[in-house]
């Protein structure tokens, strides 16, 4: 039996008095695409951010590729990892943000090459060649010397995907990657993500794109109120939801 890529068990997270995650359990196998849907404020983005330790979890266990996220276990005690170790683990997980977050002072190619050179210590020339190849893969080879402010939202998001891929991650997290885009630009970004899924990348995608979830996802997860209400294959969950809350939500967005 293969080890799951992501295993979350009863993950809790609170911001002050507000409990955002109230026991989320989820397993993602290697090569699987999991789409997380749900109303805003349901905790789906927070959960995603917990997976690469951008947020600390308060209770439960979360592991990626068999390794605990942000902690080290000795006996039955958990020790918090030092910053450098957290960073090393994050380097293996790619993340794509709703608002792209490209580095504004760097060109598209510099954005893609920065982390491989600085974090992985890859030679500049090699990183550059790999970066150009990745930009070609997302269809933006000709934009490599453009600054983010000179690119459309869709182009920026595709550069952001290339930037994450440059670290050769074993897992990709997408946090509402198309929510900030004009409708006509969404297609290009989804096409890149679809290609990535077909190449066998393990992906967790928080999205409102039901069409994408239906066609690409292996598993669709519906979250509401900080818990997973229902999970299943796209055909089960999107066509025949068991829970009333899921039906209610799908009725509003479809």
């Amino acid at each position, binding site marked *: 039996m293969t080890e799951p890529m992501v295993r979350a068990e009863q993950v809790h997270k609170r911001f002050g008095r507000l409990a955002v995650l109230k026991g989320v359990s989820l397993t993602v196998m290697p090569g699987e695409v999991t789409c997380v849907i749900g109303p805003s404020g349901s905790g789906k983005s927070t959960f995603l951010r917990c997976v690469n330790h951008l947020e600390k979890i308060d209770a439960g266990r979360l592991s990626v590729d068999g390794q605990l996220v942000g902690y080290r276990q000795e006996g039955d005690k958990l020790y918090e990892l030092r910053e450098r170790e957290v960073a090393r683990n994050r380097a*293996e997980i790619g993340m794509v*943000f709703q608002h792209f977050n490209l580095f504004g002072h760097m060109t598209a190619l510099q954005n893609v090459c920065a982390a491989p050179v600085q974090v992985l210590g890859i030679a500049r020339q090699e990183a550059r060649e790999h970066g150009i190849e990745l930009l070609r893969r997302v269809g933006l080879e000709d934009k490599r010397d453009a600054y983010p402010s000179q690119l459309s939202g869709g182009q920026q998001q595709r550069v952001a995907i290339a*930037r994450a891929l440059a670290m050769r991650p074993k897992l990709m997290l997408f946090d509402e990657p198309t929510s900030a885009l004009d409708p006509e630009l969404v297609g290009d970004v989804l096409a890149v993500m679809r290609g990535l899924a077909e190449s066998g990348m393990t992906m967790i995608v928080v999205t409102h794109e039901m069409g994408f979830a239906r066609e690409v996802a292996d598993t669709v997860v519906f979250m509401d109120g900080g818990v997973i209400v229902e999970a299943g294959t796209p055909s089960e969950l999107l066509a025949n939801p068991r829970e009333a809350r899921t039906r209610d939500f799908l009725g509003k967005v479809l």
Partner: protein
Amino acid sequence: MLLLVAVSIDSIVSNPRFEWDVVGDYLFDDRILDGLVLTLELTVAAMAAGIVLGVLLAVMRLSPNPLVAGASGFYIWLFRGTPVLVQLLFWNFIAALYPEISIGVPFGGPEFFSIQANSAITPFVAALLGLGLNEGAYMAEIVRAGILSVDEGQHQAAHSLGMSRLQTMRRIVLPQAMRVIIPPTGNETISMLKTTSLVSVIATAELLYAAQLIYAENYRTIPLLIVASIWYLALTTVLTIGQYYLERHFGRGSARELPLTPWQRFTRIVVPRHAEPATEPEASGR
């Protein structure tokens, strides 16, 4: 309004007590020029110290470690809360407080290095310490404002790529913070240029003190103060121009296209770059 300007100019030119000929005589006097050089040295050195210290203190102040952040807060409180003139005097008289400066193991351990405070802390060193340490406190707040102006998403993106806190600061946040940091830093540099004149109280022959020494001999007070003022104005002008180009450099990526410099605008007017072909019969034929 124009009349007021005309009357002022007339009075400045015709009032003999300005003694413009004396101003001319002393403008390039050796002592004045030496003072000018010292003023420049002090400004550059104190600002360099202030900027390095400021970046360090700002990063410390934003540290999640309360001890580190607290130390930086204490420094800023202390150096911003006392007049720089008092600090200059303190450093000048430091020998009264600590006659001997030594490096070694504290509380009675062996001593590796020792020096008389009076010989180590010359007036120039005291001036540099006073101005630089004080400037550090102000620069810290300017740099902190710059860091806070960079979107939180930039930190998150850098962290998600595996960059450490320091790498994120150095490679991602600070370069983008520069856009916000430079204008007030230019302001600080210009202010520093003038604040160096305070150093005259600890007998360091910078520009103002040099002028004072001369008018103490010949009693031409006003013309020599004008000489000093002219030099301060000239240096400020140079600094302002320098700031413009620095801002332009760090504006990369924030605007879609860089605005033309005044010089480029000038040359475009004099020598049009693209001579517009009014009628080009061959082009339409092909």
